[in-house]
């Protein structure tokens, strides 16, 4: 048994009180008339001072009540018999990647076998925990469960539609191992996607914990996927990306509300992309999907859903005071083969503002002639929030499209009532977003020419421009398209979009697509998994020490603390009985006196 608050045991010192009460008698207030002190004076002093405890039952009741109270407040905690009996074993945590990349051909079967092998390798006294993870981690089998339950949890597991994120799995594993003192064993059953590591996450584990990465990735991933499915004016269109080493002929099918409408044969070069556009369809038809019929290794991203609700023309207006500033912008847009239509204005007019209010997007570029700031030294630009949707496509590269860029001249943008998406070294806004009605205005502080710096020459410039246009235009699409895992309100309560497809309510619908970032099959080095764990510091304890953390252990399971309630109830019952007995004794003594 352990104590969560051992300092309360100092309350046992209160036992001195009933001892004193029973020894140091309460003196009668009124003197007792007595015939003579003749004999009382002759009784030796030592006799009058010798004390003894009377009413032993009352005394014991008080002492026991105080002991119970002290223990109750000290919150004793009983270790579970299983854990007590199994102290000889270690903790084994099996982390199974169930992101949608694990549904690649042959990968999932290998992963399940590996997970089952990891469970089977655990000793008889070992405690096995199974965690499934994608973008989120879930505890599938606890350490207290039987080995059979752990096996069944793996056998029932299937790959989902989420992307890979290792940090949540690591956090959950670390919390499972919080109260473990012996070295643990962590099995990673994963395809080692580098995109799963966002930052250099690290978690504490018991000292001596071993990490074993079971690589189940396919040697090569021949993947053809559909991306950027949307309405371009009245035509459904998409991009088909060929991630294989050979050119592919694929068939793209257009389905409206689940019914096949059109099909196109598309040839896509090896490691290339091609656009597919369908015949015009009526505005406001509802949900659409473009599905590829192809034989590739990963089918999860072969379909893309979008909404054809006729909510507005997908047009972005670019406001630039001079045509030369627009030159690099236009070239970047053209290089990306965007299906969006872009118009150019020389100034931000009231019509542009009205356009934005109705859901349109405007991008304001800085004018060379209106630059007022000169950087004393070439300045770099940092993204303020890598999770911003504008930078989603850059997640694999760490979310920084401005990497390597240097800025010499820039305009001073206001950061009042705007969302600053990127800043200069000196804190001045470099890229801002301002919401206006249903749309948004993106403003870039750097003129897009060579005199302002070398941003236009950086690799991130072209995708930055394309993402800015995509993002600026997204306001006009009234938020019907989301990624798997998002939470939306369809008017009947919050719903999580757990898989790709169409989600409907009585009055509304939305579509969900898998995150395209999962298509990046770049492998993370095994060392990244080993470096993700750091041994927990245990002062004065050697590796393998059996000291446990009772606070975490007990707080993890409130049922183990319930003994304090019974101790408190017993103490109060005893005090009630003591009160009654004390009154009876007092009245008896009064009658005798």
């Amino acid at each position, binding site marked *: 048994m352990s104590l969560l608050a051992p300092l309360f045991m100092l309350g046992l010192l209160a036992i001195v009180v009933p001892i004193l009460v029973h020894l140091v*008698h309460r*003196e009668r207030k009124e*003197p007792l008339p007595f*015939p*003579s002190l003749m*004999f*009382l004076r002759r009784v030796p002093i030592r006799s009058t*001072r010798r*004390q003894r405890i009377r009413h032993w039952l009352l005394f014991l009741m008080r002492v026991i009540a105080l002991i119970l109270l002290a223990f109750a407040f000290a919150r004793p905690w009983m270790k579970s018999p299983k854990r007590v009996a199994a102290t000889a074993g270690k903790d084994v945590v099996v982390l199974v990647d169930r992101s949608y990349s694990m549904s690649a051909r042959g990968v999932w079967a290998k992963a399940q076998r590996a997970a089952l092998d990891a469970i089977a390798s655990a000793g008889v006294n070992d405690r096995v925990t199974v965690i499934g993870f994608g973008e989120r981690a879930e505890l599938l089998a606890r350490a207290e469960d039987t080995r059979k339950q752990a096996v069944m949890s793996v056998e029932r597991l299937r790959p989902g539609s989420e992307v890979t994120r290792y940090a949540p799995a690591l956090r959950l594993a670390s919390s499972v191992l919080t109260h473990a003192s012996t070295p643990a064993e962590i099995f990673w059953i994963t395809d080692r996607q580098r995109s799963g590591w966002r930052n250099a996450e690290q978690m504490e584990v018991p000292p001596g914990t071993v990490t074993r990465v079971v690589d189940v990735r396919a040697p090569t991933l021949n993947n053809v996927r559909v991306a950027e499915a949307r309405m371009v004016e009245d035509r459904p269109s998409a991009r088909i990306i060929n991630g294989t080493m050979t050119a592919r002929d694929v068939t793209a099918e257009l389905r409206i509300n689940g019914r096949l409408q059109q099909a196109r044969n598309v040839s896509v070069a090896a490691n290339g992309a091609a656009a597919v556009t369908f015949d015009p369809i009526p505005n406001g038809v509802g949900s659409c999907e473009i599905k590829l019929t192809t034989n590739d290794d990963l089918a999860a991203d072969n379909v893309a859903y979008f909404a054809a609700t006729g909510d507005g023309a997908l047009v972005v207006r670019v406001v630039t005071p001079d045509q030369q500033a627009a030159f690099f912008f236009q070239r970047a847009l053209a290089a990306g083969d965007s299906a969006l239509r872009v118009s150019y204005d020389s100034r931000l007019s009231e019509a542009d503002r009205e356009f934005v209010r109705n859901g349109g997007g405007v991008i304001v570029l800085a004018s060379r002639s209106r630059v007022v700031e000169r950087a004393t030294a070439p300045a770099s630009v940092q993204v303020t929030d890598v999770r911003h949707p504008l930078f989603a496509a850059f997640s694999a590269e760490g979310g920084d499209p401005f990497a390597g860029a240097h800025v010499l001249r820039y305009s001073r943008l206001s950061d009042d009532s705007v969302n600053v998406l990127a800043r200069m070294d000196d804190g001045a806004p470099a890229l801002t977003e301002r919401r206006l009605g249903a749309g948004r205005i993106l403003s870039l502080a750097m003129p897009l020419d060579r005199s302002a710096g070398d941003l236009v020459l950086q690799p991130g410039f072209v995708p930055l421009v394309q993402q800015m246009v995509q993002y600026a235009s997204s306001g006009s699409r009234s938020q019907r398209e989301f990624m798997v895992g998002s939470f939306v309100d369809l008017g009947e309560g919050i719903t999580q979009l757990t898989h790709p497809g169409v989600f409907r309510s009585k009055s509304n619908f939305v579509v969900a697509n898998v995150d395209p970032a999962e298509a990046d099959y770049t492998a993370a080095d095994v060392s990244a998994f080993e470096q993700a764990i750091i041994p927990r510091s245990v002062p004065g304890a050697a590796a393998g020490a059996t000291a446990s953390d009772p606070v975490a252990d007990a707080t993890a399971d409130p049922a183990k603390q319930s003994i304090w309630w019974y101790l408190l109830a017993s103490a109060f019952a005893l005090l009630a009985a003591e009160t009654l007995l004390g009154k009876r004794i007092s009245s008896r003594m009064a009658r005798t006196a």
Partner: protein
Amino acid sequence: MKTAPGARFLDPVVLTRIGNLELIARSVVEGFISGLHHSPAFGLSSDFAEHRAYMPGDDIRHIDWRVYGRTDRHYIRQFEADTNTDFTVILDASASMSFGSRGVTKFDYARMLAACLAYFANRQRDRVGLALFSNDDVVRIPPGARRLDLALHELDRAKPAGGAALLPPLRKLSQHLRRRSIIALISDLYEAPEEASRAIAQLRQRGNDVVVFHVLDPGEIEFAYDGALTIEDLETGETLPVVGDTLKEEYAQLMAEHAAQMRRRTLAHGFDYVSLDTSKPLDHALFKYLAARERMRTVR
């Protein structure tokens, strides 16, 4: 020794509720005598002393019919017990006598005892006297044939107060004893045994027959109080803090030793010693009186 049935069951606590001393005394004594008449083992002394001529009013039960048969004249047999004597009750009226733990104080008990003894003595046609003392004050009623009512009256109005050294009052009283008497000294004897003995010895002159009634309350025989308390001396007002249950044993031992010493010293003087506690019925004391009276043989 059999007691009178009525007196045996007269609890002193009950008697105090009667309130009237004369009534109490009569009830106790008549009941005691009635019991004596029915007892084969003991009775009034009937030793023959002499004859005298019958006079109207004499008890015809005492006519000696054998003498009448021989002489045709009526003669009354006169018994030794028919001789009357002086009987004095000396009652300690000090403040310590006001203690009581059972509903009857020592003084009330002693007062009833004195009344019973006086009533009994008067019934035996002894001359009854009374003396009450506290401090150096003595209230004395000399023995007389018709002093019972006066004695009962004094007993009734007496209030215990003050201290009680025995020597001064007993010395004073002894000077007033003209005749050989039966003396009943009723006291709680809170004095050093040697001092008390010296005081009681004052009564030995003229061959007096003394019965010392040592009256105590059960609460002072066994110190009946527990816990820490302050004791106040009823006579001096002095206080003493004590813890009751720690001194019970030694206190009881001291009390027992004191009583034993008093008994020894009293008997050494040739007197009788009766230890009474207020829980005991009064007839026990009456027996003692009778025994003392037996010893007082006066043949005229």
